[in-house]
């Protein structure tokens, strides 16, 4: 009864937790538009093959890393067995009437499954040791996240260990034996209970308080009693190849264990851990057990066909991220991270920030600005999405994050530049004028000699395909950019469309009668402008934040 109540509570927690997580994602996410009509369509737009391949065989993980796949496979296989055959034995016995947990081969299988899960967990833990990590994995992660991951593994491991301890302690437990005898045989002291005890001591490793060696035992009677009352459910325990050695090892302490009913302690422990696992599943790393299958049913889409926001199922799939870090290992622009040190370039870190942003919006200007810059560095090559063991459509996520950031007032540098006013570009607090300081900087745009020979002949502008293409929209020609440099308005020049639209075809530079490196200067301005635009953006975001 207690079990049932507890189980009910836990199941309620589990159910409520899952509902909470899902609706939390949907409700709080700024990705999700409530009136999206794609909901229904998407239900049928399932990737059944992906679901099976990835959920059952974890085919993606296999491609990504064999050892991790092994660990996962061991855990999943073992756990599925244990869950279905062991934890839900009531159900199991309904299907297989001959099922008994104590008989062959279930005892063996249970131990095997437990071993598998245990091994898997050990592999997980080992991989978490710094020395087994790849360089890219050593990239800082959030502490809480790592802890949650490790905690989940430890919890599973504890469940397995407690299970083995429970079995071992029950093997040698006299009180347990007595309860069973009382319940199933009705034997008493007179009708051969002692014989049976002796038989179990001999064959089933039972440990008794009293020493029976001085008593005369009728083993034939014991065997028949065993046959009659026990053998249906209890084979010799030797095939429990882990629990039995454990029990044998614990034998010397058998009486002490029996006195404190340690077997019952382990029983509760095992049970409570199991329930805990279940209850916290939606809130722990283990949620990916549910999220990955969901994610795997989603068809991957390409940016071309991207709608503005993500669908609900795509949102759930976000939670499938296990922070495994494979994505970052294959990331195309990892070198950018090495140069800039911006962790928001790496997918496995970026996704966490994106998730936070989806919930909290512009909660921290600096982080969002970093995320913007990291996401802008991304080439959308798709390698991260290809390798993601959880099957998350990362490309779609990055694109959606782009849209989200823009709608939050944090556009990409290009949009930023085109939307920045003169006042912004000439803000003295951001860009103090440094007249005559040019000798201190090394860029072409800072060296008077690089552009002072410009005679404003406009050949560059006349030869420029960008100007020709965009006659009514382009703001400055290359010659005007050179002139702005002369006038000491480098930052303003950086903000011109010319700088950001330049194709670097070098027509202007080839034709310049004064030998000015026009294209090189434009290119340099654009490169430096990435940083400048970032500065402006950050200052805008900060102001926005302080306004709120």
């Amino acid at each position: 009864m207690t079990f049932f109540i507890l189980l009910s509570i836990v199941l309620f927690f589990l159910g409520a937790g899952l509902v909470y997580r899902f609706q939390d994602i949907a409700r709080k996410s700024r990705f999700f538009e409530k009136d999206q009509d794609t909901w229904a369509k998407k239900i049928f737009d399932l990737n059944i093959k992906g679901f099976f391949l990835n959920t059952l065989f974890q085919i993606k993980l296999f491609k990504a890393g064999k050892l991790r796949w092994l660990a996962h496979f061991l855990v999943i296989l073992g756990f599925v067995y244990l869950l279905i055959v062991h934890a839900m034995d009531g159900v199991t016995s309904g299907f297989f009437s001959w099922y008994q947990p104590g008989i062959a081969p279930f005892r063996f299988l249970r131990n095997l499954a437990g071993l598998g899960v245990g091994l898997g967990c050990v592999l997980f833990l080992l991989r978490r040791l710094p020395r087994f990590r790849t360089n890219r994995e050593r990239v800082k992660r959030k502490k809480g996240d790592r802890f949650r991951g490790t905690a989940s593994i430890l919890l599973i491991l504890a469940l397995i260990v407690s299970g083995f301890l429970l079995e071992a302690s029950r093997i040698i437990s006299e009180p347990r034996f007595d309860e069973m005898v009382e319940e199933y045989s009705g034997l008493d002291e007179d009708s051969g209970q002692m014989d049976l005890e002796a038989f179990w001591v001999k064959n089933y490793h039972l440990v008794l308080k009293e020493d029976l060696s001085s008593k005369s035992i009728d083993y034939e009677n014991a065997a028949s009693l065993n046959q009659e009352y026990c053998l249906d459910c209890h084979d010799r325990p030797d095939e429990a190849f882990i629990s039995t050695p454990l029990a044998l090892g614990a034998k010397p302490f058998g009486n002490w264990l029996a006195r404190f009913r340690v077997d019952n302690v382990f029983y509760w422990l095992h049970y409570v851990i199991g329930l805990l696992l279940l209850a916290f599943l939606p809130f722990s790393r283990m949620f990916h057990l549910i999220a990955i299958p969901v994610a795997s049913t989603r068809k991957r889409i390409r940016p071309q066909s991207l709608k503005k926001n993500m669908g609900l199922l795509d949102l759930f799939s976000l939670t499938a991220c296990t922070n495994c870090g494979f994505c970052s290992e294959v990331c195309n622009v990892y070198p950018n991270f090495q140069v800039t040190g911006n962790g928001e370039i790496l997918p496995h870190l970026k996704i966490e920030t994106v998730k936070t942003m989806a919930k909290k919006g512009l909660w921290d200007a600096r982080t969002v600005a970093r995320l913007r810059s990291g996401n802008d560095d991304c080439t959308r090559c798709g390698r991260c999405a290809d390798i993601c063991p959880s099957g998350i459509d990362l490309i779609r996520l990055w694109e959606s994050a782009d849209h989200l950031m823009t709608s939050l007032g944090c556009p990409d540098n290009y949009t930023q530049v085109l939307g920045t006013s003169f006042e912004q570009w000439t803000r003295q607090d951001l860009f103090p004028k440094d007249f005559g300081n040019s000798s201190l900087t090394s860029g072409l745009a800072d060296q008077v000699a690089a552009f002072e020979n410009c005679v404003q002949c406009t050949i560059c502008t006349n030869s420029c395909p960008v100007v020709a293409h965009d006659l009514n929209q382009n703001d400055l020609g290359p010659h005007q950019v050179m002139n702005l440099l002369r006038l000491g308005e480098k930052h303003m020049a950086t903000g011109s469309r010319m700088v950001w639209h330049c194709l670097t075809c070098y027509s202007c530079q080839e034709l310049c009668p004064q030998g000015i490196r026009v294209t090189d200067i434009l290119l340099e301005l654009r490169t430096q402008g990435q940083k400048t635009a970032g500065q402006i953006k950050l200052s805008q975001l900060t102001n926005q934040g302080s306004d709120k």
Partner: protein
Amino acid sequence: MGKTIETQVLVIGGGATGTGIARDLALRGVKVALIDKSDLNAGASGANHGLLHSGARYVSSDAEAAMECRSEGLLLKQIAPHCIEETGGLFVAVPGDDEAYIADFPRMCEASGIPCRPLDLKDAMGMEPCLSQDLIAAFEVSDAAIDPFKLSIENLNDALGRGGEYYDHSCLEEFILEHDKIAGARVLNTKTRETFLIKADIYVSATGAWAGRVASCAGVNIPMVYSKGSLLVTGQRMATRVINRLRQASDGDILVPGGVVSIIGTTSVRTDSLDKIFPSVDEVDLIINQGKQMIPALGNRRYIRAYCGVRPLVSAGGDGDRSLSRGFSLLDHAGDGVDNFITITSGKLTTYRLMAEKTSDMVCEKLGISSACMTRDLALPQTAGGKWTEPGVSLRQGAFSHKKEDHTLCECEMVPASAIDSIVSSIRKNSGKPDLLSIALRSRLGKGPCQGSSCSVRVLSHLYDRGEMTGTEGVDGLRRFLNERWKGEHALLWGTSLAQSSLKEMIHCGLFSLELESGE
């Protein structure tokens, strides 16, 4: 004989002082007319550094002028902030400069009440990286840069808004003398060749170097000597602050920022001529050679333009008792037998307001009007017509205007068509006739490195398109404009400037053949 204009006061000379007097009097309710033989700031008001002195430069030579500069400078920063860039200033000395002067400098500043802070040499070079590495002394003072064109335009606009009148290109032909008074002034419009008469109660000559000539029309002799001073404009702004050489005033020792450029000068050359004066090659070289001692980069920078002005100095012979201050000369010619004629000359741009105040006081005394001067307290209004003289202002208006139906006519200084239109309409409003010179006076047109090579053509065709010009007016105006620009170019044509001026000559002589039909 054309029309006759009647007014209370006729001010001759549209420089800083003349426009200042016009505003001062207009504020006191006096009806005033202003004439200039060419246009605003044609004399020394338009040919100076644009430096608002802290006064420190005069602490040794003229403590009184130093104090005047200090108080007027502070005042102008209050009443005309839009004409002033508060840059701050440095006084620096290099090896070879008079060490006794350097040692005495802080004490002299203190004596005149001029704030002056000694600087660590490293700090000074950090503040202005263009400075020579060999500095031996540096002080910080509160110099500032002032836009003399904007100043005059705003003064004039305020005067016009209060009932004043302005006639440009109106040259004084003669004074009609009756008894001890001037009864009228005959004036020739040099553009239309029309003559007209202006009758006033009081005649004020604020003609700077031309004071002697104007006075002679009234039969008054003012002994004057002229000192020509030349200045150079660099292609880029070189420093944030004003940089003065810490020594007795000499050649090429002040560098003043003017928006996006810097101005280095001056020289001092005695001259007899007032009209055909040019910066000479020798002067240019002198300024550069002197200037590069404190700012080495001046030795190899590109220069856009040279220009010169004439400092009018009233000879010390006997007139000292009549001058209110040694800084400027305010002469009441009643003693010379002309009752209603006043001359104001000399002085400094920094003290223009004080000069205008003292002059207006004298005018009012003569008119028997007792109203007090208001320019000390009343801020100089900012008007639309005055905004285009400031270097860089066009950037704010035009550079990011890809959405606007506007286009750039002057590439170097990025003057948009809308600016030209607004200047043209302001000239028209004042019944003037726009041409390249009058537009250039009120904007940055032609003041960039190309010195009018192609902007002139673009502006002309724009004016023709707008119907502002007809016939051959454009090409005639172009010749005048190019020759005016040339005055400031020909002495500094080497390197890139020479390359650019050859392009200009290729266009205007090589192709347009402007020299073939020139009237000269």
